[in-house]
């Protein structure tokens, strides 16, 4: 279970990461704990997979991936694991989830694809469909970004 210090650490780690030689010391100072204690806890979250990645996320438009498509698929239930493992191996697939289909919306499998152009996204999806032997999918290109941020966990602990 997470204690209050864990929640304080997780909350403060959502802030800008200090670009200084000893960033963890700067964060630990704010929390009023030692750098060692902070590093021990952060390593613990990594080991328990609470942290799935430590590093930078880029703005994909700025680094040349300006087209992004949510591609929704109809995958037979018994093939979901196999298709999920196949698509997860593809580098330009950044997210790959099975989801519950709904009345009037039969798509039960979702991938995010990134490329330079819509045409390239379409080619990628077509290749995935051929590899997996799937016919039914729909490309949902974004036309406007209304919001994009990272989740602010335990916001009330970060004052």
């Amino acid at each position, binding site marked *: 279970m997470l204690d209050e210090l864990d929640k304080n650490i997780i909350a403060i780690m959502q802030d800008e*990461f200090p670009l200084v030689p000893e960033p963890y010391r700067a964060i630990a100072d704010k929390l009023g704990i030692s750098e060692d204690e902070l590093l021990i806890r952060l390593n613990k979250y990594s080991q328990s997979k*609470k942290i799935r990645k*430590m590093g930078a996320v880029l703005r994909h438009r700025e680094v040349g991936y300006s087209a992004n498509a949510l591609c929704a698929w109809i995958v037979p239930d018994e093939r979901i694991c196999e298709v999920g493992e196949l698509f997860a191996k593809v580098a330009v697939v950044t997210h790959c989830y099975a989801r519950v289909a709904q009345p009037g919306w039969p798509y039960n499998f979702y991938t995010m694809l990134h490329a330079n152009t819509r045409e390239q996204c379409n080619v990628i999806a077509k290749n995935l469909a051929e590899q997996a032997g799937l016919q039914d999918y729909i490309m949902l290109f974004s036309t406007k970004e209304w919001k994009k941020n990272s989740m602010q966990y335990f916001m009330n602990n970060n004052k």
Partner: protein
Amino acid sequence: MLTAFDKRLLNIIQTYLPFESRPFAAIAARLGAEESFVIERLRFLKEQGFIRRIGPFFDSSKLGYIGTLVALEVEPCAIPQVAAVINSEYGVTHNYERDGILNLWFTLFSHNMSEQNEVLKKIGNLAGVVRLINLPATQKFKISVQFTL
């Protein structure tokens, strides 16, 4: 424009930033560069908008949050108002207008199901919302946003 060094740096830091006292020195060692130069370039890349965020990325479900993807059919003229209400929800991290009948898609994190239901009920009842489809995940195969430059 990104220099060859910037690209190497970004390729490394997308997957490697260790939990140790001098993490940028560790990256610098891999690049054969000075720690101070790595920090200087990272400041520049952050300021210029190439880097969205540096830090740990948590598995929301392991922290006790419930996530879902929600698709809406919204009357086109009502999209700005509906999007504004969605954006004001603390647990909404992504909200995109997309091609097709279901024209507004957002991701929502909640502390529990009743909180999720409450938010979805509120949004589903907004003027201009024709249909709300909740698409909770049953299995996650990949979440890894990395771009090789």
